[in-house]
């Protein structure tokens, strides 16, 4: 647990976030999530509400947001859940941040396929920019986290930065993405080698005629 989140001091957090309340838009959105479930089952809405709360905290602090204790308790109270049960959910999922993160939350996948395809190089690019695992850079821009499989193995190695995936990375392309982000430019989202989603690198090797049109192969069957 060496890189476990260093949960900020409770008293300070309460002073800063004790008065947390939904913005009018988010209040409506929260109610929409709660209304999806039958009465008495409102606890089912805990995950979307926590996500919403994290985003609201992010908007207020111009970061990717996190879940301070008073905010967790606010959600618990709204859903009439024991506080312990909500904090269990928060701590279980890596998508909820228990400590503040920067403007860009860089989640590098380090699971086997990505590791074999060079996630170490991706991490090296991050380290070169002064990032450390589980920490935010002093300028508040980047937070680096190594995560388990994010489900884009065909495009390994990949990172998730905020809500977007950046795939088929190399140390150089990762460095340029980070430079772009730091400079306020929007890098290309998705594959960095120009392929669409997870289609084959270098174009198709079978069913080539399908590229131009919906080719009918049936006549060519032997």
């Amino acid at each position: 647990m060496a890189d476990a989140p260093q949960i900020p001091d409770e008293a300070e957090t309460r002073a800063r976030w004790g008065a947390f309340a939904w913005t009018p838009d988010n209040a409506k959105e929260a109610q929409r999530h709660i209304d999806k479930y039958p009465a008495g089952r409102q606890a089912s809405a805990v995950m979307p509400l926590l996500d919403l709360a994290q985003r609201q905290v992010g908007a207020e602090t111009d970061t990717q947001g996190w879940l301070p204790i008073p905010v967790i308790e606010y959600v618990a109270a709204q859903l009439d859940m024991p506080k312990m049960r909500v904090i269990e959910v928060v701590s279980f999922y890596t998508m909820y941040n228990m400590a503040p993160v920067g403007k860009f939350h860089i989640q590098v996948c380090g699971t086997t396929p990505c590791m074999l395809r060079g996630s170490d190089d991706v991490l090296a690019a991050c380290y070169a920019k002064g990032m450390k695992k589980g920490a935010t850079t002093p300028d508040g821009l980047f937070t680096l986290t190594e995560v388990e499989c994010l489900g884009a193995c065909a495009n390994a190695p990949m990172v998730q930065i905020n809500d977007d995936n950046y795939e088929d990375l190399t140390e150089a392309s990762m460095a340029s993405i980070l430079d772009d982000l730091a400079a306020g430019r929007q890098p290309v989202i998705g594959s960095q080698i120009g392929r669409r989603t997870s289609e084959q690198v270098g174009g198709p090797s079978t069913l080539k005629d399908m590229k131009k049109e919906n080719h009918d192969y049936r006549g060519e069957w032997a």
Partner: protein
Amino acid sequence: MPNVTVDGIPIAVPDGATVLQACELAGKEIPRFCYHERLSIAGNCRMCLVEVKPGPPKPQASCALPATEGQEIRTDTPMVKHAREGVMEFLLINHPLDCPICDQGGECDLQDQSIAYGRGHSRYDANKRAVTEKYMGPIVKTVMTRCIQCTRCIRFAEEVAGVEDIGALYRGEDMQITTYLEHAIQSELAGNVVDLCPVGALTSKPYAFEARPWELKKTLAIDVMDGVGSNIRLDSRGRQVLRVLPRINEDVNEEWAHDKTRHHVDGLVRRRLDKPFVRQGGKLVAASWDEAFAAIAKVARSAKGSVAAIAGDQVDCETMFAAKSLVKALGSDMLEGRQTGLAYDVSNLGAVNFNSTIAGVEDADAILLIGSNLRWEAPLINTRVRKAIKRGARVFGIGPEVDLTYAVEWFGNDASLIAKLPKAATDAFKDAKRPMVIVGGGALKLDGVQGAAMGLIKTLKLVSEGWNGFNVVHTSASRMGGLMLGFAQTGGIADIVAAKPRLAFFLGADEVDYSGFEGSFKVYIGHHGDAGAHAADVVLPGASYAEKHGTWVNTEGRVQYSDKAVFAPGDAREDWSILRALADACGVDVGFDSFDGLRAAMITAVPALGREGLAGYDFSAPKLDAKAQMKLGGEIAYPIADFYLTNAICRASPTMQRCSSEILHGDEMLEAAE
């Protein structure tokens, strides 16, 4: 009734039984960590693997697998042995080898089962995971590196204690059991998680490093901290009781005990009265037994029958009977046990009894609490109410609103509501098959409440064939025994105060308002230097419940016997022998010379005390003065102001003091500097 075979033994098991239960019925031991009879099934420790046909060709977790017709269960195959060894090896990957310094050592499920079902050695030499300690309050000590994540404590807190304070943070290998923000567990049942923990992760904080289980003498006793009469085991070494553990009694405490029961024991060796004292010139001065007896005998001779005896909350029937005999021999019948001034009618004992029985609470489908903070007055009846709610019961309350760990529909704090119940309650009770009313001491203190509550017997149809839902919950362990022995005046203790007795015996009575006895010569016979000893003219050191054999009657009228675990300290004697010697000093005859003789005389006088089990009072509601009902009204105040400090033993206990200040008063306790 599915028929299964376990290791070739054909057996019929009840519907809904699991494979694990089927194996137990067949006499096969199944190792387990997460499974517990009284908690929900988690199925996460995997220790209970067995082979089951038909089914997939792999070991199955028997605790979570229902037994079905024609199953062929094997617990003795190489596959099962191998599976258990494998699970045990995984459990031990991260479990530290610190048994020599672990308080669970000697009574540890993991220790026992690794010897019985594990491999002889470990194949892992990688570093073990370490987990930081968690703070869980003054009762529970944590060494979380030892935790095997069975989640019994989480399930207990949620399901039985009703306090969702404990949970598991993070996931996978990083999973950690903790309380919310590491605050103390806000439950009076927290100590039970120590018993539930199959390893040494949660151990008893006050008992830390005190003793090993094999060096303790085990004595079967009855708890005196409240009126429930929990069955307990006193573990003692030498002259000191070191800990209290609950015994299983399905009718009384199941297998739980609350924190006061478990951790008052350090009070048994503090502030003890260990020699007689006589008041001279306004000060209590240490004296010999002869001097003390002489001082009492002088007053007794001139008292001419103006003698009274007041029993406290933790007095056994034998002591009360001995005192009764002495008072009678001195020519009086002024006896009272309700020391705080309660004066309800006791012409019918059934009408002041917990008639449905404690186990019967689970069957109730509508419950009305009248002036009872059940969570503090009888925590183990409160857990039964929780069970009744799980089965669909509705609970209503009259009195100040308190958190009873379940949903109560409160009507308000006004005793007159008893006579005119809101429609919500009358409707619920109309459909109820097993309606129940629980009247607490707080309500009985008010004039007319007893009569009004009696009225509910008819209007709510509390009594029917095979069911009596009229319950009174007493907070004192000696109450029902005292009432059976006649320790009650019509007007309560006020009658005795009005009679101005020349000589008054106080048997461990520390809650009495002593200002009413200023003219009396006060003799305190008890074990702790508390309010009673401060007010007394003569103090005679007696034995606590752990230091004498005794008969106890709990709030449902259950007669139970308790054994002597240790000897009383110093010059202190067993109470009956003090009273017997006092009779000699006063020159009167009480009719017994030995403890057995006393018990025989007591059983002759009250035969019900000679049979273990429910005393079985005849139930008939006494006709109470109609005028008393006219005065009905007013606010109810609960009798217990501080759960952890209700009697002299608790008040002498540092652990209970700490629980009180930390859990109830929220003071931050600073850890002592190392």
